């Protein structure tokens, strides 16, 4: 009897949800554009909210951008759901009638790539661009992301959630949008094993994806030591950032990027040093995470969501050091 009641009420929920979603679908046809800032001529950024990504109610959490050239438009990250991607597309349509020729993903995380389907549906279809190691990482992670989205609960497999990439970057590559060039650079394992930065020299802007976090606690999902090395390379004399406006993956775009770099470096270096010390003292991983749970997080948002995770990842990496 209890089961029957539960079924009846779930059916009721489903009907309600369907009605709400039908409403949402209707809305999509007249999708509201995402608010964007024009950082320079033809360079637009939408700032995501500071929340951990979730499929249902936190799909707009990463910074997304697009660059309008004299020939066409390049999109840099598409958002945490197809709906966010569609809203970004509406922002592009409001800014320019030129076609979208490239969709660039700065790395594999769902808050940056799940908006891709909105662009795969365009005619002509833009070319999708990523770090050469992104497809393998996506293959390994996609089932988990899809699980997070509830796909394995009955929806059709093969939905166009992850469009194929036509252009893979294993070192560096320049794309042209007419009068604007984009210099793409594929990095060694840092925030993830597939971070790609996008430098727009004609407009003085660099999109760093999640190689740089501001306000939102940095998240280690690649290699801590690699990330620190990449930060040194980027902030050094040959990093190409001098005099540029820098767009982090999360947080405010800034020309005072040296400050943002210093903050992130301070946090990551502290995690590195304290974890190394705990390993040298023979402490275990759980004990170390617990002991350092309050260390270094002052002034950062989302530390409750990501700091222990960073310590866990750092420990598993650093215990292999010689």
């Amino acid at each position, binding site marked *: 009897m209890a089961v029957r009641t539960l079924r009846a009420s*779930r059916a009721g929920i489903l009907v309600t*949800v369907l009605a709400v979603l039908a409403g949402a679908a209707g809305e999509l046809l007249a999708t509201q554009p995402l608010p964007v800032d024009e950082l320079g001529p033809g360079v637009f950024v939408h700032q995501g909210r500071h929340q951990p990504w979730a499929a249902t109610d936190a799909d707009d959490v990463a910074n997304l951008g697009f660059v309008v050239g004299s020939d066409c438009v390049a999109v840099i990250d598409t958002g945490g759901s197809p709906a966010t991607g569609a809203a970004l597309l509406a922002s592009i349509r409001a800014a320019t009638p030129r076609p979208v020729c490239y969709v660039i993903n700065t790395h594999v995380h769902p808050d940056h790539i799940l908006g891709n389907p909105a662009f795969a549906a365009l005619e002509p279809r833009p070319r999708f661009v990523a770090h050469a190691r992104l497809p393998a*990482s996506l293959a390994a992670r996609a089932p988990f992301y899809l699980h997070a989205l509830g796909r394995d609960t*009955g929806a059709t497999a093969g939905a166009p959630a992850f469009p194929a990439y036509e252009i893979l970057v294993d070192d560096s590559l320049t794309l042209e949008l007419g009068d604007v060039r984009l210099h793409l650079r594929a990095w060694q394992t840092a925030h993830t094993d597939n971070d790609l930065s996008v430098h727009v020299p004609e407009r003085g802007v660099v999109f760093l994806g999640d190689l740089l976090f501001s306000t939102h606690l940095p*998240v280690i999902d*690649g290699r801590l030591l690699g990330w620190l090395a990449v930060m040194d390379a980027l902030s050094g004399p040959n990093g190409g950032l001098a005099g540029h406006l820098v767009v982090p993956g999360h947080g405010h775009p800034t020309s005072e990027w040296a400050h943002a770099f210093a903050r992130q470096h301070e946090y990551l270096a502290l995690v590195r040093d304290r974890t190394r010390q705990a390993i040298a003292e023979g402490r275990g991983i759980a004990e170390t*995470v617990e002991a350092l749970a309050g260390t270094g997080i002052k002034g950062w948002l989302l530390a409750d969501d990501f700091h*222990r995770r960073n310590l866990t990842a750092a420990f*598993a990496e650093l215990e*292999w050091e010689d």
Partner: protein
Amino acid sequence: MNTLRSLLLWCTLLLGLPGTGLAQQAAADDAEANATWQQVRKAMFQGRDITSPAPDVISIEAPDRAQDAAIVPLSIRTHIDQRAERYIEKLYLVIDNNPSPVGAVFHFTPASGRADIETRVRIEAYTHVRAIAQMNDGELFMTTRFVKASGGCSAPPGKDITAALANLGKMRFRVEAAADGKVEAGKPALAQLMISHPNNSGLAMDQLTRLYTPAYFVRHIQVSYAGEPVLRAEVDFSISENPNFRFYFLPHGEGELKAEVIDTNDLRFESALKISPR
């Protein structure tokens, strides 16, 4: 039209979530009722009684939430001495809602000193994690913890696929010793074995080719001390990338502590330490 279609598909996906949530809630309330556990229990223990909880025999430490889905530290602690007349012979690690729920079976002997194990596992979803101890007389004791899945963009596969393969088979093997580098005879000593290995699940599908990467993981571990077995384990891809185990052995005079590891491609990795206890 395409956009609308993909939105509708997506909505269909999201419909599953409320139901899943209810199921997870129910599972958290009643550990015994979990359908996967019921199957595992029937397959592995038939109708045998299992005492649960059994805090005098076994307990498990795990975080309430998997902070990093790829690396969830677990400590299985046992609270009885490994004596020849009565000892823990096997420890089963079961993660109900992982694709392969039986993550490891550890075998101990009186020479293990203690049947404790620390390792790290992948957690795919909200799940009960269980450790079941089987005594040498067949008696069974169980401890259970509920672990919430990670949030955000954390995922069970490894973080650097290229590096994992490049370092394949590298090992770290050490024993926790006193300042003079010695362990004490007759007192269980803690050892740590680390193996660099991708420990792939084989559940990753290439989105373009629709082909699965073959499963490739460490499946067998054997540790002996002075020629006597102290730990044997059959493990699978629920164990994190770069499998890591902490366990005990009972030192008693000069001897070699030797670890052998075999993976699913039948590659064999070995490492050994000279032990001369005080």
